């Protein structure tokens, strides 16, 4: 096919498990629609890209605190509603298992398999004190201009 593929761009701003799930379900669906898909992670959405294991990196005091307070990886994220200090995610993961729904880490893996472009916003990485080594492999690093370049000829564009 020589014709230009359609494009979906999603800004994932939220660090909530449920909202990130919605973003990744749409991204996977769009990839199945043969769209070129980009998820641009900024602010709390960056936590979806964090590796689960502790990565030793040099940081200042504030950055260290931020790193400790934020969820380390997609599986540790809380719910936007009914989080109940961490009980909510446990319950919903149980229900998801029953319904055979993919978990967020599985959805992220599936997105990578489908060549969804995962982008981390470098400016907010600096603000939150996150470094490249702490984030998943095979992602891209960019700023607002790269996002706009993808979004300006986008057919679907979402902010979650």
């Amino acid at each position: 096919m020589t014709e230009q593929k359609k494009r979906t761009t999603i800004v994932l701003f939220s660090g909530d498990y449920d909202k990130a799930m919605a973003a990744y379900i749409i991204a996977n669906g769009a990839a199945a629609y043969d769209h070129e898909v980009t998820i641009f992670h900024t602010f709390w959405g960056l936590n979806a890209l964090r590796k689960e294991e502790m990565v030793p990196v040099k940081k200042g005091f504030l950055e260290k605190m931020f790193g400790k307070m934020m969820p380390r990886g997609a599986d540790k994220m809380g719910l936007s509603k009914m989080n109940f200090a961490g009980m909510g995610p446990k319950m919903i993961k149980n229900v998801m298992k029953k319904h055979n729904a993919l978990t967020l880490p599985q959805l992220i893996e599936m997105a990578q398999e489908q060549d969804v472009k995962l982008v981390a916003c470098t400016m907010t990485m600096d603000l939150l004190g996150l470094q490249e080594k702490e984030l998943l492999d095979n992602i891209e690093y960019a700023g607002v201009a790269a996002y706009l370049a993808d979004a300006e000829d986008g057919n679907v564009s979402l902010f979650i």
Partner: protein
Amino acid sequence: MKIDHVLDAKGLACPMPIVKTKKAMDTLTTGQVLEVQTTDKGAKSDLTAWAKSTGHELIDFKEEGSTFIFYIQKG
């Protein structure tokens, strides 16, 4: 009707039926027919819309108990 490939997507939840259908479709050539079996209640609208926008043709659809069966011809 000649069926070239059968995809069992039973028990899978959104968005898996559509993702698997796309993957299976990629292995076929134009004119070949894919049978998709699914139990996801949203699949009827999903697969119909998907086939339309990706240039394939939904040639038949039936329900057997709680299973939905689609026949999609690659465009």
